[in-house]
């Protein structure tokens, strides 16, 4: 396949892209790649195996500085990495560790914390979960009630975390905990990290649409957390979270994933009753223009970042539009797949030919993608942000 250079990308960037593709081609287990491609589930061991390959190459942690074992890439490299890994169906690995708590520790942690906590992420021995949301604190995250009380040097943490992704596979949690009273609810919140086998931690599975076990409820009952596990200053977590999430805004748009879904849609549409349908083909073409709108919005942000200028208000478009485009694509794929999409991939299998078997997960993917407009700041919250902060309404 020949690729043309996108405006603004250099030959060196494209050489990096080729190197990355060749690496994935050579190193990623084809069975895992196939599973990711069809939307089937991937085990923790498979995620770990892929993370170890990336780590050996120095590519596991795109957002961390080189001195802590990160890739030390600029925004363009990180963007290319995100795009190509999505396009080539690599497992995503332990996202909360690599994209959130890692950068948090690199930026705000003490030297002792960096030396103690970062190597376990890079070796894939440690698996982290993100304890932010609570039963009463969803969109209104700052109203969280999990409490940390001082006991000598330690914190005693009590509360309930909800929707904690992959807590069942994690051996560490980083949690937002209210550690002091403060007139503003965003104040007094701290980052505490602790092992999941600490006494008082218990995990209850939550099964979501289509029989998936990815999220959990985590009960924290007087969990003792040593003072050395407070990241950053006490009461300063809200500001730190804003900083860390800011690092993620380009990745959060899921541009590589949209491109991947578009490719999948075109593949699915090669057969079936809609293959020749003019209206449906128009819909696919329109979705393609959506993907381009998203991609070139991201390129504008990238260009600003590379020029060292603030990207400005356009960034807010990415999460909102990115979620909608992925959801629309997943819906079109499912519709193009037809009756096979209605078959549960978890039930007794029908004897399906390979090309249809590959479509079994299309409804699961559609259902699962509904989360994109709910988590990480729901689409309604994104609109509120645009209206208030940008349009100043």
């Amino acid at each position, binding site marked *: 396949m020949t690729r043309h250079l996108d405006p603004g990308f250099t030959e060196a960037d494209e050489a990096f892209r080729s190197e990355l593709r060749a690496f994935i081609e050579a190193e990623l287990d084809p069975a895992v790649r196939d599973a990711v491609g069809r939307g089937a589930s991937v085990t923790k061991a498979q995620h770990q195996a892929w993370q170890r390959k990336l780590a050996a190459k120095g590519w596991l942690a795109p957002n961390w500085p080189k001195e802590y074992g990160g890739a030390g890439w600029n925004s363009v490299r990180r963007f290319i990495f995100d795009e190509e890994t999505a396009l080539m169906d690599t497992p995503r690995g332990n996202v909360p560790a690599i994209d959130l708590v890692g950068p948090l520790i690199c930026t705000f942690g003490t030297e002792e914390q960096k030396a103690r906590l970062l190597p376990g992420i890079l070796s894939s021995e440690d698996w982290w979960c993100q304890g932010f949301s609570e039963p009463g604190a969803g969109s209104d995250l700052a*109203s969280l009630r999990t409490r940390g009380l001082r006991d000598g040097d330690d914190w005693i943490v009590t509360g309930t975390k909800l929707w904690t992704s992959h807590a069942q596979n994690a051996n560490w949690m980083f949690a937002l905990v209210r550690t002091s009273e403060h007139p503003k609810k965003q104040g007094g919140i701290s980052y505490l990290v602790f092992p999941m086998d600490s006494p008082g931690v218990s995990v209850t599975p939550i099964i979501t649409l289509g029989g998936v076990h990815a999220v959990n409820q985590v009960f924290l009952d007087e969990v003792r957390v040593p003072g050395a596990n407070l990241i950053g200053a006490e009461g300063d977590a809200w500001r730190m979270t804003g900083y860390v999430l800011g690092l993620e805004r380009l990745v959060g748009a899921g541009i590589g994933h949209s491109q991947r879904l578009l490719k999948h849609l075109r593949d699915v549409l090669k057969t079936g009753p809609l293959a020749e*349908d003019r209206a449906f083909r128009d819909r696919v073409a329109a979705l393609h223009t959506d993907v381009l709108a998203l991609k070139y919005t991201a390129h504008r942000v990238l260009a600003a970042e590379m020029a060292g200028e603030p990207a400005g208000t356009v960034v807010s478009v990415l999460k909102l539009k990115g979620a909608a485009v992925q959801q629309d694509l997943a819906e079109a794929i499912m519709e193009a797949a037809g009756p096979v999409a209605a078959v549960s991939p978890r039930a007794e299998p029908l004897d399906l030919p390979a090309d249809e078997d590959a479509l079994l997960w299309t409804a699961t993917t559609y259902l699962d993608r509904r989360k994109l407009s709910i988590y990480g700041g729901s689409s309604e919250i994104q609109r509120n942000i645009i209206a208030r902060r940008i349009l100043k309404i």
Partner: protein
Amino acid sequence: MTVAYVFSEDQGMLADSVARFLERDYPPARRRAALTAGFDEMLWQGLANLGLFGALFDEDQGGFGGPVETMALFGPLGRHMALAPVLECMVTAGSILAASTLGPDHTEALTTGTMRPALATLEGQARDPWDVTAVALPMSGGMLSGAKRWVQGGDAATHFLVTARDGGALSLWLVAADAPGVSVTSSLRIDGHGIAEVTFDSSPGTLVASGDEAARLLSLGLDRGAMAACAQAVGEMDALMEATPEYLRGREQYGVPLASFQALQHRMADMFVALECARSLCWHGTLAFERPEADRRAAVAAALVQVGRSARFIGQQAVQLHGGMGMSEEMPVAHHFLSLTTFGLVRGAEPLHLRRFEAATDPERT
């Protein structure tokens, strides 16, 4: 107006008795347990014991109802998401059999629920459930061989209604599920309903109809099934339209009920509009069985388009407005979303209905 667009007292009583039975004997926990287990014999028996299957059949076919009674019954079946193949076996296949010359031999078994036929038309690459003449099994001397796919309700079927071709015209055959050479591979849909692939190896069948009569019966059965599916989807949407405002009134964020945000109020208003449009065309399609066939086809296609769109929008928005809760299997909203998603997948995609609508519509009339 000669049509009231409301159920008569008798029809309302039918709906109430199904609703009462499901409320009492089919709690969500029991449904969840059955979700991965396949055919729920006990539920089927319970529904059959109500003695209401007769309401799905016309009076001249041994029943005591028709399309409107079917609509009345399927609202509560949708609202409570009963995992029983009433739609596929009793309405789609049942109405074909009952309207055929074999009807009188089978109405007793159908209305008591001891006979559960399933329609088996699709084969190979054929995926448009409405294009019934596209494929057919080869047959000779009353024996059928070959494979049928995507047989909805086929896991629980006692009989199959099979399309076949003996050189020339399409014909429709009744084959017992335990007849020689019949083998059934069962699976489940994402909404918990059964689906099967069925192979026949020199299996003996009884002729139901052939040629134009077979085509007429198939079209009738598919249209009856489609309208029952629409009524069921409207029942599901009714449930979501009640659950969503109720949830948002109870859930507080930012110190106020979520229901107080105007953005969410407007979304629910849009859901309401979508629901009422679906209900209108559900009535229109249901009443079209009295009309000439082309009118009926157009009305059914229009209903499938509108109900499909409303089902998608209302399902998605109910989940969205419930936040993470909407994705949890503990919540009925997640299950309604699954079944409303299957609606479009099983009945065929919107472009197919639009084409059928266009073909059956007189452009001079609106």
